[in-house]
C-alpha cells in the first residue's frame, strides 16, 4: 500500500499551474509539503483529495482517504458525535448501533469521549481539530490529508495534534501534511516535499533535506532556514 503519483499536472487556465509532479509515499509515513505561499502545495493536496481536477500518467491513492482543513471542519449545526456518525449512516450504510460503537471508539482514540454532545463552537480549537481527525478515522482511512491543520492553534495545542498524528503512524495510515509550522519537520515528518512555482523541486527523507539546503536559491534559503 502506497501513494504513487506519476507526472501530475493541473492547469485551470489561471496563471498558476502544477507541473509534472511525481512522488511515492509508503504505509505509515508522514510527508510534509513545504514551500512559500503560492508555491502550489495546497493545490497539490487538493488534487490528491479529488477537490481539484488534474491529469497524471499514474495516480494511485489508497481509498478511503480523509481530509482535515485548517478550520471549520466540523459541521456547525451538528454535535461532535453527530458529525462522526452522519457519514457512517448516510454514506456507508452502517446501522445506528454500529455508528454509535465506532463513534465511541474514535472519540476514545482522540481523547474526546466527554465532548461528544458539544457543538463545534463549544469546543476549543485543538478539540475541533482532534474531532475532525476522529471523524476521518471513523471511516478507517488509508490516507489522511491535512491542510494547515495547526495554523489556527497555539504551539501547545499543536503538540496535541502531532502526538495524535504520530500515534496514527503505527496503524499504517499515510499522512500528507501541508504546513508552515516549523515544528512539523523536526518532530514528525518522515519525508519532505519542497515546492516552488507549481513544481516539486525536491522530495526525499526529512533528514536528508538539510543536506540539499545549500543548493537552493538564496531567498528560498532564508525561508527554509526556519525549518532547521
Amino acid at each position, binding site marked *: 500500500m502506497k501513494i504513487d503519483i506519476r507526472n501530475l499536472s493541473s492547469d485551470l487556465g489561471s496563471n498558476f499551474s502544477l507541473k509534472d509532479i511525481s512522488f511515492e509515499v509508503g504505509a505509515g509515513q508522514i510527508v510534509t509539503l513545504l514551500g512559500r505561499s503560492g508555491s502550489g502545495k495546497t493545490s497539490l493536496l487538493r488534487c490528491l*483529495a*479529488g*477537490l481539484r481536477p488534474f491529469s497524471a500518467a499514474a495516480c494511485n491513492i489508497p481509498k*478511503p*482517504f*480523509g*481530509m482535515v*482543513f*485548517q*478550520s*471549520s*471542519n*466540523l*459541521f*456547525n*449545526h451538528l454535535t461532535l458525535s453527530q458529525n462522526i456518525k*452522519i*457519514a457512517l449512516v*448516510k*454514506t*456507508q450504510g452502517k446501522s445506528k448501533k454500529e455508528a454509535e460503537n465506532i463513534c465511541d471508539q474514535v472519540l476514545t482514540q482522540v481523547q474526546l469521549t466527554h465532548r461528544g454532545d458539544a457543538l463545534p463552537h463549544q469546543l476549543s480549537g485543538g478539540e475541533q481539530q482532534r474531532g*475532525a481527525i476522529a*471523524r476521518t478515522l471513523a*471511516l478507517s482511512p488509508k490516507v489522511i490529508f491535512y491542510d494547515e491543520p495547526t495554523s489556527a492553534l497555539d504551539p501547545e495545542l499543536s503538540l496535541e495534534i502531532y502526538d495524535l498524528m504520530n500515534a496514527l503512524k503505527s496503524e499504517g495510515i499515510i499522512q500528507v501534511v501541508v504546513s508552515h509550522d516549523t515544528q512539523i519537520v523536526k518532530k514528525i515528518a518522515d519525508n519532505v516535499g519542497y515546492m516552488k512555482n507549481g513544481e516539486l523541486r525536491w522530495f526525499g527523507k526529512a533528514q536528508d533535506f538539510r543536506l540539499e539546503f545549500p543548493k537552493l536559491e538564496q531567498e528560498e534559503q532564508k525561508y527554509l532556514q526556519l525549518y532547521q
Partner: protein
Amino acid sequence: MLMITTLLGIYASGAAGEPQVLRWAADTESGAPYVFFEANDPSKMSGFEFELIQQIATHLKMTPKFVQNSWDGLIPGLERSEYDLAINGIEITDERRRIVSFSSPYYATQLQIIVRAGDTRFKSISDLNGFKVGTLAGALTEKILRDEPNIEILPYESEVSAHQDLLLKRSDAVFFDGPIAKYYSSVDTRFSILPAAGGSATYGMALSKKKTDLLIKVNQAIQHLTDSGALKELYERWGLWNEPTAQIFNDSSPTRIRPTKFEEYLASLNLNRGFAERLKIYRLSLPILLVAAMTTIKVSIVSMILAMAGGLLLVTARLWGGPFMSGIVVCFIEFIRGTPLLLQVFFMFYALPSFGIELSPFIAAVLGLGINYSVQESEIYRSGLSSVHQNQIEAGQILGFTRWQNFWFIQAPQAFRIALPPMTTDFIALIKDSSLVSVITMVELTKAYSTLASTYYDYFGFAVIAAILYILIGMPLVLVSKKLEKRF
C-alpha cells in the same frame, strides 16, 4: 364533445324546478346609498341597488347571491364566472359597451360639483381648471374631469375619504354622481353642492356579452318594475327620484312617498354614538372581521407553503441547474421581482381567462402571492447557502456525500439558520400583502376594515381592531421562528 357541452349546460342551469341563482356583484366599501351594510347591523345589506336586485330576482324567480368585488374589478370580472351581472352605479358609456352588454337604464342622475360651504370661487366645471378636484377612480366623473384642459384630478376609492380631503383642503372641490352628493354632501353643512350640474349619467347593469338570455330577462324585469311603479316607489323611498330618471321612465307624475330610507340613513348619521354604543357596533362587526381574518390566514398560509417550495426549486435550479437553466431562473426572478404584485394578481385573475385558464379567486390569490414570494424566498435561500463555509461543503464531499446529500444534510440546515430571520420578515410582509387580493373579489381583513370604517365613519376604532388582528395572525409565526432560531 357535444354531449359534454349539453351536460354542462344542464348542470349550469341547475336541476329542473329549483330556483336559479342570480349572482350579482358590487363594492360595499363606502357604498351608501347603492349597496352597503346597515349601520345598525353590519351583517345586513341595504341600498337602493340591493333592493332593486331583490325585486328583479323575485320577478325572475331566481335566488340572488351577492359577490363582493372592488369597483375597478367589477367589469373585468364579468369575463370570469364568479358572477352574472354587476350593478354599482356603473355609467353606460361607449367605451364600456365595447366590452360588456348593458341592461336598459335603471336610473339616471346629474353629476354634481361639491365645494366647501362658503367657497364662491366656482360655478361650473370649467372654473375648476387650475385646481385640485377629487372624484371616484374609474367613474364617468373622472373621465369628464380629464377632458378639461387643466384640472388636477385626485382619484379616490371611497367617497368618504374624498369628502374628508375636501374639508382638509387637500382638494378644492369634489365631483360626484347625484346619489353620492345627496348622501354624503347634502347631509353635512360644511359642504355645498353647486346648483349647475357638471353633466349627467345613466346607470345600467353590466353583463358579459355572452349572457344574452339573461340580458333579455333582466330587461323584461326592469320594464315590469317600471310599468308597475315599483321602481319609482323604490327611488322615492331612498329620496333619489329625480328629473333625469323621470325622463328615461317617461313618468312625470309627482312624488307621493316619504323618503323613509333616506331619513333612516340621516338618523344613523346624526346618532352621537356613546362609548357603549360603539362597543356594541364593534361587537356586531367582530364576526365580519373574523371571517375576513380567516380568509387572510388561509390565503397567507397556502401562499407561504407555495413560496417555500417554489423558492427551494428556484434556488436549486439556479445554483446547480447548469448555465441554461440558471439563465432562465435569473430572467424569471428579475421579471417577477421587477413587476408589481398587484399587477401579477390582476393578471392571474383577469388576463388568464382570455387564454382559457380560469382560476378561482382563491387559487389566483395564492398563485399570485406564492409565485411573487417564492422569488424573494429563493434570494433569501441563496444568501443563506452562499454563507455556508466552503470547507463544510468540501468536508462533506470527501466524506462521500453525494451533491444532494451534501445539500440536504449540510448546506440546507446551516443556510436555514441564516435565512430564518429574513424569512420571518418576508412572511409577515406576505400576510400584510395578502390585503391586495381584495381586488379579486376576496373579502380579507383590510377590505372588511375599510368597508366597516366607511360605514360608520370610524377609521380609528376599526383600524385598531384590524391592527390587533394582523398582529395576532403574525404572532405564531414570530414565536415559531424564535423557537427554531434557538434550536438551530
